[in-house]
């Protein structure tokens, strides 16, 4: 059976194709203005890469904030279930998942079958999300991709006390004007994000083995800060950003 998962996030669109229980390929694109088109495009491009055509796909499940815009999907399933399913598919031992994307962060606890037992999401506030990091990267004039490596060089992380993105940005700007080192500011930003996420993760009682997924998992600075806060080790796979799409493709096979 050939299935596909399409995950339309607030910043990026992801696709995954699974053939007979094996991930054949994945792809990440920007979502842009039109969620439906983004879904179509990212899947088409992936199929082109894999030398497959759309007709060969048996079923598609969409997920993410744009899940209901993907009209060609057979079913829309929330990213909470898809991330749980994806993580369990890639490592059946996993019992907790922290997923941090562009506009929200969430923690999930799954059972031995990968079924979500409980979840918590950030409140309606950008703190603790990828968007928060993007705003800070712009203020610091640092490429977001370099954030992780830079923060690991920090000797003395700055203290960012405000949880509001706008106020935190002014804190960052005032630290810049005081001549504080970029590394320290970035490490402070990561700790601020980690404190938000760890609070909601603790609320539902996450435990090991713990996996982190979503785009922000690519940032080793956030992962380390979270490990320190939670006093747990966190597994991050290469496929962290496309985990939701993989989970959607797995769900598609079960429809």
């Amino acid at each position, binding site marked *: 059976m050939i299935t596909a998962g399409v995950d339309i996030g607030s910043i990026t669109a992801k696709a995954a194709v699974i053939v007979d229980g094996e991930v054949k390929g994945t792809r990440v694109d920007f979502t842009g203005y039109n969620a439906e088109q983004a879904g179509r495009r990212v899947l088409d491009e992936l199929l082109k890469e894999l030398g497959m055509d759309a007709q060969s796909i048996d079923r598609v499940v969409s997920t993410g*904030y744009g899940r209901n815009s993907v009209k060609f999907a057979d079913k829309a*399933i*929330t*990213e*909470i*279930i898809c991330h749980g399913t994806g993580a369990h598919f890639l490592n059946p031992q996993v019992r907790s998942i922290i997923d941090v994307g562009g506009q*929200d962060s969430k923690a999930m606890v799954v059972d031995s079958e990968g*079924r*979500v*037992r*409980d*979840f*918590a*999401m950030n*409140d*309606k506030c950008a703190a603790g999300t990828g968007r928060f990091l993007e705003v800070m990267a712009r203020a610091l004039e640092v490429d977001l991709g370099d954030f992780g490596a830079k923060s690991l060089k920090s000797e003395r992380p700055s203290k960012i006390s405000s949880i509001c993105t706008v106020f935190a940005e002014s804190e960052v700007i005032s630290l810049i004007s005081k001549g504080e080192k970029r590394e320290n500011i970035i490490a402070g930003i990561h700790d601020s994000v980690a404190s938000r996420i760890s609070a909601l993760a603790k*609320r539902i009682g996450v435990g090991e083995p713990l996996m982190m997924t979503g785009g922000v998992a690519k940032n080793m600075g956030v992962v380390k800060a979270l490990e320190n806060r939670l006093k747990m080790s966190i597994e991050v796979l290469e496929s962290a950003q496309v985990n939701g799409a993989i989970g959607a493709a797995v769900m598609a096979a079960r429809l």
Partner: protein
Amino acid sequence: MAGEAQEKEKRKMKSAKKMRDIMTNYYIEAKTAGETGKKVAWITSGGPVEPLIAMDVIPVYPENHGAMIGASKMGGELCERAEELGYSGDICSYARSDIGCSLVDGGPIGGLPKPDMLICCNNICGTVLKWYEVQARYYDIPLFIFDTPFCHTEYADEAKKYVRKQIDEYTGFLEGVCGKKFDHDRIKEVGRLSVEGQQLWQEVLDTAMNKPSPMTCFDAFFFLALIVTLRGTQETIDFYRDLLEEMRGRVAEGISAIPNERYRLLWDNLPIWYRIKWLSEKFASHDACLVADTYTSAWCGSLKYMDENNFLDSMAEGYTRIYLNIGVDEMIKIVLEMVDKYDVDGFVMHSNRSCKPYSLGQYDIQRAVQREKGIPSLIIESHMVDERSFSESQTETRIDAFMEMIRQKK
């Protein structure tokens, strides 16, 4: 399509029109009180209204009005008026929209009638004290504050004496404002009608124990208006008798509140007034019926303390021990009982930025429900009237995920 329309018609509640008519007449009477010579008192939703009825004073509830403002999606605009005066956006949206409405006579009914007096009971929150003081200054009218000590676990003797004494002060206050003696015979009759009204309301809510349920909590939010505004009157009793009969009839005929009840849920906290329809359709699309809630049952939750043969004394205890004036451990007991009574599969909590006393302790209640009953729960963050703070896509994802989780579990 014809079948669908027929289905919808069958599910429609016949009593809804009657209630709209009663409420319309009630507001017309209140708004024309100046011409009929009757006095109008504004009173908090959990306040002891019976002495007002006994004195022929028309009680008006800014909170009921707030619900109407919210349901008409006019909350944000009126809250802005209050914010322009300097009131913080963190203040209760009932208070903000009421203060805003007083300035512009806006909202769905062009504002409330000008009050002759204000009755403020702090058994529901502390905000009402400042809110009613503001309004007392604005309208330059007398304010009576009925102070109910918080009951962490019990109703101590000191509290009992303290509250009972205030009932005499309250009736004395009414004698002064109304210029006539308090009618002690009449209050006995009003008390009897109030207790009977509350009993009937409880019986109406109890019909949701049936599977499938003939009503949802969204229906209860609507039908609640009478027990809030007109308890202590014969009209309320007549109405709830008819409503009870309609609900029992629906049960007998197998008419369910939603087309396909597969999951039963319990709601906590005030409604999100401007999203009632959206929420009820959203849950119904998942075959989930919100069968009961902690909010509407608060208007019959004190029945165990009420004695119609000794109304004024027992009223003191009943009004002090309402759901919002007790400790979290007591609340947990009530919620756990409701989980069993209505046999629910999940718990939906509205974390209401407007209502701090209702929202404080929700995480503890949530944990207790999960621990004791093993059912999943969901927290939705919002404001009950201020629609500017609602995020549809965020709420939708949480509800969808919650329902997927329940489905996987069941």
